[in-house]
């Protein structure tokens, strides 16, 4: 889905006339540059450089307005060459030779060369960053045989190299970052000289950022002259400000109950598309009872996800697929299905020997342990809390007891994902949880989510173990050919759909609202929304 691109309505006035005249006189000239656009963001993003920005979305996306990556994800999350003109991959998939575009420059006028690229990856290996450093683990070395040529030598072929490394790591200017040698210094470093389409002009702590277009940008003049990013923490206030015309757009996705109102509001356009973030029921698969796949299937059967989508999301979501991946993901296996039914939940439980032996309405296992679980959910997320309440009701109906515990983010992480290290185990039964959109786009998503080794299954927070998944996963991460990747991912989804280590409830749609009068040339990135570099500059030709 893409937002319709129309010529911006030019306001009457002499400035407008001049612009109009210019457009008439030079028909080959690109469309007029919009003056200023105010895009509300949710929180502080440091100095907007690669070591101080905070959030994966929209922080990374905004940071890439100031810095460039070698590739960049397009509207379909396919990496397209950005700083790179030409790519050659050796037959064994381990040597990547990239040719940079000519005449690339940093904001300070110095040329951007292969030495900067080489420096960037060596820097990331040395100065720890949660996103850049892991990409260097599989690197044997980076060479810069000529100013425009970069050679990446990989230890083993990498399925995600193009998207997760080349289209992800921003190139740092060597002449500026070289003296910054420690993690603490890098995290306090305020320099924002990049090569991207925008320069950071003004940073007001916790109030706003002001970026101005880099008129020398190699891919053409950015479409918006000035970009103001006000920080608004509260969702309600954000949408009120949008309605009142005090911001033109926001990185927040519109809440379901506001969609109808905003679609009718004058001057506001609503763009809607698939969302790659997920809302899931996460099982602790190591739990003595929840390790039983029959019990997990019974629980999933009792939950009416269609009704959840209608009640909680007012229909603005896609019902979860049991193989985890969104139906719009390029790796989705169309065959996987899961039908919920209360009757099936009951018969599954009966067959597995879970019966209510003492007549208290809660079934007990063969050893007499009652099916009584704690369900964790996030405070401050009313949709998840209501979802948890519905789940409790439905499970109660089939004889499974659930106690809901609402806690704030850090407290939940402490139990579900202590220290963000799945090697450290887990202390929970079930949780209404969710993963952000980028998790879905990774070719290796299923490995990250379900591989039993905590080194590979880095977000396997349920502690799921399956030998076949492990074998396929190991194969997938070294597979570079997209068709083979899809075939392996499909096999993995079949197994996950049978075993249900997580039960995906739904994928909330990405619904973005904006004031079309201020700017109407947003590009919609599938699953993520319009905060992408492509909204402000066309892909280089």
């Amino acid at each position, binding site marked *: 889905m893409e937002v319709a691109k129309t010529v911006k309505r030019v306001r009457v006035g002499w400035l407008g006339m001049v612009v109009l005249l210019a457009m008439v006189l030079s028909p080959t000239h690109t469309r007029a540059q919009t003056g200023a656009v105010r895009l509300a963001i949710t929180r502080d993003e440091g100095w907007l450089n690669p070591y101080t920005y905070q959030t994966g979305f929209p922080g990374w996306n905004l940071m890439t307005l100031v810095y460039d990556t070698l590739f960049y994800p397009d509207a379909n999350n396919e990496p397209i060459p950005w700083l790179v003109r030409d790519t050659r991959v050796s037959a064994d998939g381990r040597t990547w030779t990239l040719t940079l575009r000519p005449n690339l420059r940093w904001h300070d006028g110095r040329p951007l060369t292969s030495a900067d690229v080489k420096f960037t990856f060596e820097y990331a290996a040395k100065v720890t960053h949660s996103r850049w450093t892991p990409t260097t683990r599989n690197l044997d070395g980076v060479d810069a045989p000529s100013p425009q040529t970069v050679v990446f030598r990989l230890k083993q072929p990498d399925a995600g190299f193009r998207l997760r490394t080349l289209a992800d790591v921003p190139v740092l200017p060597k002449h500026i970052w070289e003296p910054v040698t420690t993690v603490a210094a890098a995290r306090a470093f305020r320099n924002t000289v990049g090569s991207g389409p925008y320069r950071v002009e003004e940073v007001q702590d916790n109030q706003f950022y002001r970026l101005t277009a880099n008129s020398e940008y190699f891919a053409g003049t950015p479409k918006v002259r000035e970009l103001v990013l006000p920080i608004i923490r509260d969702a309600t206030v954000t949408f009120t400000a949008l309605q009142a015309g005090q911001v033109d757009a926001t990185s927040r996705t519109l809440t379901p109950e506001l969609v109808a109102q905003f679609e009718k509001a004058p001057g506001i356009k609503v763009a809607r598309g698939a969302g790659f973030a997920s809302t899931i029921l996460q099982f602790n698969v190591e739990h003595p009872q929840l390790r039983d796949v029959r019990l997990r299937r019974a629980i999933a059967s009792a939950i009416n996800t269609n009704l959840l989508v209608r009640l909680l999301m007012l229909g603005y979501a896609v019902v979860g697929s049991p193989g985890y991946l969104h139906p719009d993901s390029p790796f989705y296996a169309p065959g996987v299905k899961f039908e919920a039914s209360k009757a099936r939940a009951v018969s599954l439980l009966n067959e597995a020997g879970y019966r209510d032996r003492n007549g208290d309405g809660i079934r007990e296992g063969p050893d007499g342990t009652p099916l009584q679980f704690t369900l964790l959910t996030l405070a401050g997320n009313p949709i998840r809390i209501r979802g948890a309440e519905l789940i409790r009701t439905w499970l109660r109906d089939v004889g499974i007891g659930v106690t809901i515990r609402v806690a704030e983010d850090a407290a939940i992480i402490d139990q579900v994902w202590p*220290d963000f290290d799945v090697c450290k185990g887990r202390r929970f039964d079930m949780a209404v949880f969710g993963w952000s959109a980028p998790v879905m786009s990774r070719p290796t998503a299923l490995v990250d989510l379900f591989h039993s080794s905590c080194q590979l299954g880095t977000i396997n927070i349920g502690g799921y173990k399956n030998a076949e998944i492990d074998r396929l996963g190991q194969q997938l991460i070294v597979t570079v050919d997209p068709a083979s990747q899809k075939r392996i991912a499909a096999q993995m989804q079949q197994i996950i759909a049978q075993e249900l280590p997580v039960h995906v409830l739904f994928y909330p749609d990405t619904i973005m609202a904006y004031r079309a009068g201020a700017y109407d040339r947003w590009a919609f990135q599938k699953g993520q929304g319009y905060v992408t570099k492509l909204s402000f500059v066309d892909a280089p030709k």
Partner: protein
Amino acid sequence: MARFFAGKGVQYALVLLFAVTLNFLLPRLMPGSPLVFLAGEDVGFMTAAQRAQLTEAFGLDRPLWRQYGIYLAGLARGDLGHSVQQGRPVAEIILGRVGWTLMLVGISLVLATLMGVAWGTAAAWRRGRPLDVGSLGAAMLLHSTPSFWLGMIFIAVFAAGMRLFPVFGAMTPGAGLHGWAQAANVAWHLALPLATLTLITIPDMFLIMRYSMLGVLGEQYIATARSKGVGERGVMFRHAMRNALLPVSTVFMLNLGYIVSGATVIETVFSYPGIGRLLFEAVLARDYPVLQGSFFVITVSVIAANIAADLLYPLLDPRVRYAR
């Protein structure tokens, strides 16, 4: 006198040390760690060694007593440390915020005190009459109104509905204003949060002033003043109100100590960049240095206000002076 001050000095020093220790311990008692804010959302993809490198860089791997020692040593040098989340010096962050908070809470405290005193005096003077009963009801209602709710109503009516005021922030983002235009812009943004906070604070002052005034009006010297022919205005202002102001001044001084702690709820509702919001965000992020630093500044200012109250009270109330 010198002995009195020495005694007080020791007392305040002990309070400060106790508070500083609590400021250090309390944030660390919360479950969870600052790691995700230190590392970002991709912390899950890091190896254990990489994670260890990060916690080490911020000294979070050291035993608690060592961290405490480092914290105390830093305080002694006037160094509040660096924010885990932002990597910036805590002192710099607090300095950037404290002005906004002082402006919002300070002006509101003065306004609320003046209005509360006037209103409380008027109500007590007409005790039991419709003005008093009505005022009491209104004050109770206002007193029990949640501030976030009042703030949101103000936003909905005056900002979103009538579009008279901005919906968020302390100034128009990226407007690049200077001088008077900037001052006007800041005042315009201050209006709604200030009105909300003032309205919420008035009832406290009103209630104290009214009860204090009622007490004073029952005193014999009021009857004496009347009987010796002092006019009603004179009785009200010279004899009653001046004496009734004592408890209000105490509350005012106490509140003065808390003005740097900001108004978390109001600042959050109006996206106002003050200390209250900083604290709220630091709690969510488990940003220990920022929490410690903010609490320290608040502690010091509360203690300073107490000292000021101790010193000022004898000037306001001669009886305290004579008693000594």
